[in-house]
């Protein structure tokens, strides 16, 4: 028998006043994968996740989590999920160990078992040294790890991670990614929201792009990129002095403008046909401009988002996400 879907929503709707924060979201997420929900601030990611985690009641549509209706059987859903919210869902006044022991006790661990389990997780998440410090003195990365540890005292079948790496340095971010990968390897389904395209690209097996409360694209990272239908030629000239000249040559020969990257030697050209790439390289050789490197690749998710919405993903106007 096939497993029920981890998440299945149909025309899910949430209104705050007249603002349709989630405006008819359809999702169908199989178990056992990392699923990314990608979108700018205020797109409706957090609101969607809060409805799925039974914290908010949908105003319309349906949502099933692991086969249970979130509106009718919230208790059944809560037994099998865990949530790590966008704002640390741990108690800042308590120590790391106390936080885990409290939650373990609430889940029914007996005193000694709870302590053992807490210590086991603190070790696995490299928090042993800080276990007796109040969480308010933790760094962002430590707090996140504790937050995730708190979510897996009983390893859930489905874990919601709301922007798990927002504000983290690259090292802490990598640690969080490793934890997520290990969880999925162990059979947990992870639904994560992110505004970082790289994160969705690196971590998620499938991605839904959400904008203004709607799913505007869905698929694997490669599918999303392919759907935009262009490939990108990245070039790096040997000498920065020659970049302008190279840009001119490319525009003449390919008929499309070259984008000047922050790196003073780098240029990017969008091609609608991969076959035109050798032409560009040939033209530069003829013009006597030596290249340090070149590569032909798929567009980044940034470019995908731009193509889907007509605006960049991260420099969005500061739309206010309704925090509830």
């Amino acid at each position, binding site marked *: 028998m096939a497993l029920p879907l981890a998440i299945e929503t149909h025309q899910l709707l949430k209104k705050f006043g007249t603002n349709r924060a989630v405006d008819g979201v359809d999702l169908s997420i199989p178990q056992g994968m990392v699923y990314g929900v990608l979108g700018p601030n205020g797109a409706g990611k957090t609101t969607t996740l809060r409805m799925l985690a039974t*914290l908010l009641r949908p105003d319309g549509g349906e949502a099933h989590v692991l086969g249970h209706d979130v509106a009718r059987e919230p208790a059944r859903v809560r037994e099998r999920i865990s949530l790590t919210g966008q704002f640390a869902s741990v108690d800042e006044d*308590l120590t790391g160990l106390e936080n885990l022991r*409290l939650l373990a006790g609430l889940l029914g661990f007996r005193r000694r078992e709870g302590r053992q389990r807490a210590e086991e997780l603190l070790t696995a998440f490299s928090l042993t040294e800080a276990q007796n410090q109040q969480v308010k003195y933790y760094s962002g990365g430590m707090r996140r790890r504790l937050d995730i540890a708190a979510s897996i005292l009983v390893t859930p079948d489905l874990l919601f991670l709301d922007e798990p790496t927002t504000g983290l340095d690259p090292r802490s971010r990598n640690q969080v990614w490793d934890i997520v990968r290990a969880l999925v390897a162990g059979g947990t389904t992870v639904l994560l929201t992110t505004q970082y395209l790289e994160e969705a690209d690196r971590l998620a097996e499938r991605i839904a792009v959400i904008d203004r409360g709607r799913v505007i694209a869905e698929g694997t990272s490669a599918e999303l990129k392919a759907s935009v239908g262009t490939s990108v030629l990245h070039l790096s000239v040997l000498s920065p002095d020659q970049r302008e000249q190279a840009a001119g040559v490319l525009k003449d020969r390919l008929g499309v403008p070259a984008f000047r990257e922050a790196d003073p030697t780098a240029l990017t050209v969008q091609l609608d046909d991969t076959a035109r790439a050798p032409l560009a390289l040939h033209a530069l050789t003829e013009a006597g401009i030596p290249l340090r490197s070149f590569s032909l690749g798929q567009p980044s998710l940034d470019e995908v988002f731009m193509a889907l919405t007509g605006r960049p993903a991260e420099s969005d106007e500061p739309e206010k996400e309704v925090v509830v």
Partner: protein
Amino acid sequence: MTEQDTMATPDAARDTSLEAALQSALARRAAPRRPGAISNATMFGWRALLKIKHVPEQLFDVVITPVMFTVMFTYLFGGALAGSTVDYLQFLLPGILAQTVIFTTIYTGVTLNTDISKGIYDRFKSMPIWAPSPLVGAMLGDFLRYTGSSVIVVLIGLLMGFRPEAGLSGVIWSMMLLNLFAFGIGWIFTTLGLLMRTPGTVMTISWIVLMPLTFASNVFVDPATMPGWLQSVVNANPVSHLVTAIRALMAGTANLGLLVKSLLMPAAITVIFAPLAMVLYHRPR
């Protein structure tokens, strides 16, 4: 090349051991048996105690206010009202005890209001636990505050010359009654704490409710000297019933009727406000 190799080895070794720890930590999927409502509420009571342990400053009011009130009212009014401060203290102390504990209930609302805006409540709400347990548990933690402030009032009273005829058992029964009363009316402040936007507003509104409630009672004076209309107000005031019961407990003259009468109002408040608080708790904020 060789440098890279030596650099890589310890890192890789650490990663493997960490990974093994992670794998074994994640391998435990079996959930323990779901605990009951009381167990859940007790854990939240423990949380409240931990908070007091880490932020003991919050007990400042609990310690200072009762000392101030007992000393101030006894010496200010004692001579004028009862002829001597010691005689007045005998009358006043049960009243001050009630007033102090009632004022302490405000902190239930204020603390909850500060607490609930934090992300950890998202976690509590998404966990398979008895839904009211965070609220009930917080109130269990308050028992410590109530007991603490009443012990202080009684000690100050004893130092100043208060002598309960019923002795220690009178004091202990009084404290138990006070805790029950405070638990009941605490639901009002829990509701306010959930309803208001800022702790400051909770505090202000609570004082507006509590000042007339405690002063228009028999805490400070015998209502026999009051005008008739005020007497009926004072005699209907649940605080008066509580104080009468405590005086009787301390004097060793209490009966079941008095105790029941003093607990009617807190019971009614619990019946009305506890469900209201639950609705507000689950309302999206």
